[in-house]
């Protein structure tokens, strides 16, 4: 529990998730599954600042894994080892990535996509701007709820009517979001966004020694499953 995960940049965190996805293809038997999962569990325990969030992610993954164990056991000829491997493969695939993704800051991600990966600046800036509107959506949802209650169209106890209410509010939110999108784009164009030749970024995107070390660890973790498969 060192909190080291907070010091690496978002691309390294993405690499952890991508590595676990690629590594999970080598999870073919129970030994490989247990070894790979153990390696990821050790890395998570060492790097995260608190155990609560990784455990919540693990719980969410386990639900999916259990349903897969059951369906594989039923449809794949009642083979327990095979079913258990399929379930653990999902945990190796999903859990490290979902833990790592939780520590990604959208604004820093935008900086790194544009400056480190050199993705087209217009696309990245538009994506980053929309991602940051996420919290505006949350606020607007509460406003919609308040104004609807004031007009006497609040949610009732009937779940069916409640579903209709939620769908109506979600549509209203989508309409507001798209209005916001056209306002944002007019504002961006007014500042010469569309035809800019040289673009500057407010924050630098740096690669420190911690980032390089993080990338090495992510690669090593991804290789655990294939190497174990070759050795056993």
């Amino acid at each position, binding site marked *: 529990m060192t909190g080291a995960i907070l010091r690496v940049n978002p691309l390294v965190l993405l690499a952890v998730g991508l590595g676990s*996805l690629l590594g999970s293809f080598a999870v073919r038997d129970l030994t490989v599954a247990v070894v790979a999962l153990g390696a990821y569990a050790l890395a998570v325990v060492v790097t995260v600042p608190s155990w609560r969030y990784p455990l*919540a*992610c693990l719980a969410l993954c386990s639900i999916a894994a259990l349903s897969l164990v059951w369906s594989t056991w039923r*449809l794949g000829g009642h083979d327990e080892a095979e079913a258990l491997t399929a379930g653990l493969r999902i945990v190796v695939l*999903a859990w490290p990535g979902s833990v790592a993704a*939780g520590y990604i800051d959208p604004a820093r991600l935008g900086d790194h996509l544009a400056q480190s990966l050199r993705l087209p600046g217009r696309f990245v800036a538009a994506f980053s701007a929309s*991602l940051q509107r996420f919290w505006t959506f949350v606020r607007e949802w509460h406003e919609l709820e308040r104004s609807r209650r004031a007009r006497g169209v609040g949610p009732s106890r009937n779940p069916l009517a409640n579903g209709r209410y939620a769908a109506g509010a*979600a549509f209203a939110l989508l309409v507001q979001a798209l209005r916001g999108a056209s306002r944002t784009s007019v504002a961006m*164009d007014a500042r010469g966004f*569309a035809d800019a030749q040289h673009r500057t970024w407010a924050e630098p995107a740096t690669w420190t020694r911690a980032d390089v070390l993080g990338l090495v660890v992510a690669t090593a973790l991804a290789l655990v499953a294939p190497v174990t498969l070759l050795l056993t």
Partner: protein
Amino acid sequence: MTSSADTSITGFFVRYRTIDLVTIATLGVAFGVVYWAWGKLYEPISALAVFSYPPSSGLLGGVWLIAGVVGGLVVRKPGAALATELIAAAVSLLVVGGTQWGFSTLASGFFQGLGAELVLALLLYRRFGLVVAACAGALAGAFESLYEWTSYYADWDLPYKLAHLAFFSLSGAVVAGLGGWLLVQALARAGVLDAFGPGREHAREV
């Protein structure tokens, strides 16, 4: 000679306006949150007795295909469907707790977006009716099912896999295709798509 009133696009001229980019990203973020919430509801719903035949859980998958169809129908430019679906998948990964499928969600988003994109590309981005939307949803579902054959259900027997493919495509055609098309019409009527094709079609001459 083309008059100034003639606004039809000839050839493959693809230049994304700022509003195209911001709308794609906004739709991506909005549907990403929907995808995340549906992911949380999916497990309890798919465990219901109605879905005791496991391949039928594909029927629930259509919800995850809607961003690509809507993005493609609204922006009507090459790459819009793929980009919207991919951003929605990425956002569902970044919202608190992510999804239970981890980074596999990104691969799913890619294949789902590709399915919808291919149908629109085959029609050279000229047709955006209900049938086209349903086909886009169905192919997105078929691509996703093929991806899940290799990543999740590798040990299922072939008949089950084929049933999963059929259920997923059907769900894609109805939920994402028909649902997405209706949503775009409703948004156009609400007047927020005036800068796009569907909004112009709804404009009434005064």
